[in-house]
């Protein structure tokens, strides 16, 4: 029986997956995707679903593909940049195809609320030649999650479900449906498709390309791609996903122009052609990159038609859509709010928590580096990235998970000294240890500080897998000279003594590791 649940977009996808009979949920925490996995994790035991965070998104994707290989359904969730990490497995899984239904839910972050870029995952789906669904609201998130599993098992392909921050983290009521039974264990007798030797891969890639017309036909007939004519054909409007909500908002629910909503990919070219027959001017409003707009415009444009959107400046190229931006882009009147009554409104960026161990660690590291002049420290992704801001001004890079170590090594190759990297324990486990292993092989003269706070703090204190003694064993296992592994409990009261330990390791012209070990205050607060 249908029940009405109060769900975030992330949670609606999660519940859709549970009701689709998944046997596994995989992922690595990352805003705005984290709550999807956590919702499933919360009921995993009673539902008999395997749900344990993976070391990184690539591991998660491969575990899920293995579950699919064995015949069962699985969902993988990650943020958009996580898919860069999982891309190898993801793109090749389009070639292998799947056995049990496999859905990748990837949450993009237009506007970069909590991210390094605003890459658009629809490109990945197109790149891998697999279908992609894109909901506009929480109800569609639930419904599409269910449909994605059906589509996956029907097409024998992984299916991408694209969310954006404003849907992932917006709550509303959702009507839910029946539960499907889980799949039985059913590994394939024929494993040709999963063995991508060139001889096999050529065959499978050919099969994948032959599926494309069928996928495009699916899109043209999809209920998620409705083309609705309008009385005012002076322009047509094409929107994707959540951009529909903003368009509906600015017209009070009744858009007078022909509208094509796109919620299923590959792009519904048939529908787009039908739209272009109706109108001479098409405004493309996309939440994300100008993905459809570029395709429609092509190199030479469309004869006799004006295609407007992000590429001609009609719609802002950067940042997320809002109802106000959509109204302005369409030249509609925009309501005026109130003006601030205070002359200057200072920014309030996020900060490290009171009592945060990272703050003391930065203090100690800065003190150690002071003797060496203006040293730029490489860093990484986590709470400690906030060490960029005053009063710490401690870090000078943040690029991608694990980059602190590899970039510091590269700078050391170039002859820079000192080279110091600061990375968290979970980020180290995600993608830092391979960089360190590489550096240790040639004893690169640099120092890595692993800020071991025992948790994935930024995304809400998820469990980390290399902390404490385990972390020490891992670092030594990578081949580090034990003489140059130092463990400190960073504390401002002991800054001088601890800075001396770090200084000594910087002076050593080989690879050294400092583990700055002190638990996250959030972890203590939660009593974990």
């Amino acid at each position, binding site marked *: 029986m249908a029940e009405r649940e109060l769900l975030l977009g992330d949670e609606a996808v999660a519940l859709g997956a549970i009701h689709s009979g998944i046997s596994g949920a995989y992922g690595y925490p990352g805003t705005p995707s984290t709550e999807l996995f956590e919702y499933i994790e919360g009921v995993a035991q009673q539902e008999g679903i395997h749900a344990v965070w993976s070391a990184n998104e690539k591991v998660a994707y491969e575990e899920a593909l293995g579950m699919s290989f064995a015949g069962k359904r699985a969902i993988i969730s990650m943020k958009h940049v996580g898919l860069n990490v999982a891309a190898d497995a993801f793109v090749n899984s389009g070639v292998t195809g799947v056995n049990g239904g496999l859905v990748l839910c990837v949450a993009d972050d237009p506007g970069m609320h909590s991210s390094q870029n605003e890459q658009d995952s629809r490109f990945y789906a197109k790149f891998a030649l697999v279908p992609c669904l894109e909901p506009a609201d929480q109800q569609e998130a639930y419904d599409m999650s269910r449909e994605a599993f059906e589509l996956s098992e029907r097409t024998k392909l992984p299916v991408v479900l694209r969310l954006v921050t*404003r849907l992932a983290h*917006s*709550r509303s*009521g959702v009507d839910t449906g029946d539960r499907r039974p889980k799949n039985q264990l059913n590994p394939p007798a024929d494993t040709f498709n999963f063995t991508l030797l060139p001889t096999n891969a050529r065959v499978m890639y050919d099969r994948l390309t032959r599926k494309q017309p069928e996928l495009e036909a699916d899109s043209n007939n999809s209920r998620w791609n409705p083309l609705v004519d309008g009385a005012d054909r002076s322009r047509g409007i094409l929107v994707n996903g959540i951009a529909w909500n903003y368009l509906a*908002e600015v017209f009070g629910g009744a858009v007078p122009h022909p509208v094509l909503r796109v919620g299923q990919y590959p792009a519904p070219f048939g529908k787009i052609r039908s739209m272009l027959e109706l109108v001479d001017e098409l405004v493309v409003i996309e939440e994300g990159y100008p993905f459809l707009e570029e395709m429609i415009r092509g190199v030479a444009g469309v004869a006799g038609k004006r295609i407007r959107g992000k590429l001609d400046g009609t719609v802002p190229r950067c940042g997320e859509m809002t109802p106000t931006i959509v109204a302005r882009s369409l030249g509609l009147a925009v*309501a005026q709010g109130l003006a601030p009554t205070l002359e200057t409104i200072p920014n*309030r960026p*996020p*900060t490290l*928590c009171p009592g945060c161990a990272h703050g003391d660690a930065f203090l100690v590291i800065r003190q150690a580096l002071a003797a060496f002049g203006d040293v730029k420290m490489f860093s990484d992704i986590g709470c400690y990235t906030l060490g960029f801001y005053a009063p710490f001004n401690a870090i000078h890079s943040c690029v991608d998970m694990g980059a602190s170590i590899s970039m510091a090594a590269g700078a050391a190759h170039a002859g820079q000294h000192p080279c110091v990297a600061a990375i968290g324990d979970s980020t180290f486990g995600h993608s830092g240890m391979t960089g360190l292993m590489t550096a240790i092989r040639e004893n690169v003269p640099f120092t890595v500080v692993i800020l071991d706070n025992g948790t994935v703090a930024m995304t809400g204190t998820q469990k980390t897998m290399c902390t404490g003694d385990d972390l020490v064993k891992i670092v030594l296992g990578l081949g580090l000279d034990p003489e140059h592994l130092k463990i400190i409990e960073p504390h401002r009261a002991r800054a001088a003594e601890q800075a001396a330990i770090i200084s000594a390791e910087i002076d050593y012209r080989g690879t050294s590791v400092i583990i700055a070990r002190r638990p996250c205050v959030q972890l203590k607060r939660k009593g974990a």
Partner: protein
Amino acid sequence: MKHDIILAGVGGQGILTIAYLLDYAAIARGLRFKQAEVHGMAQRGGAVYSHMRISDQPIHSDLIPEGHADMILSVEPLEVQRYLEYLRPGGAVVSNNEPVKNISDYPDVGQVNQALLALPRAILVDAAGIAQAAKLPKAQNMVMVGAATPFLPFEWREFEPIVNRLFGAKGEHVVQANMAVLEAGWRVGAFAKGLLDAGVTSNLASRFLARVEPVSLEPVMAGQFAAVLTTAKAQAFLDATGERVAGDADLLKALSA
């Protein structure tokens, strides 16, 4: 009927708890709602907000268009300024008066409050004082929900089952203590709304509220108080300092005599 609300505050102040109470109140009324939240990095002491939309009609956008919000409900007074472009003319501001000074360039608190009270329909709530008086110092958000209620399609008592869901495990006395705090907030909000509706300025309303005991206020009397707040006696009362007094019929009589 529609209510578009911007919830504002600083990461860690618990605006999602306020959102939770309002969400479930809307559900209990069979209303539609959407509520866009901020998670992740900003939750670490940064500026946080939530767009909350309640309506008896379908809601399209998760985000409120600029100039459409009916209320800014803020648990920090400076944060109000960040979202005023969303507030429609005639919209209300209900804000906690306690600053969170986790930035070095926090403006003068007096200026922050005066800027807020320069707005036509603004209420500054002494949430910390009310919560501390009830020996529930962490219940400032309950005060703010209560103070916002008169501007929303809810009665303050409707929150009891939701407060029970939040705190029921800690015992009935905890639920009742939180409800008492919420009611005190409601008294302040409803009384202030009455004053504003009767044409009293935000500044004058705020000065009056600073002189009276929140739990003593009877919102139905706000109109009568509004009529006497410009008298010489009222001026003297507002200018005085010291203990808060009961904002009851005796005070009304004293101010109007």
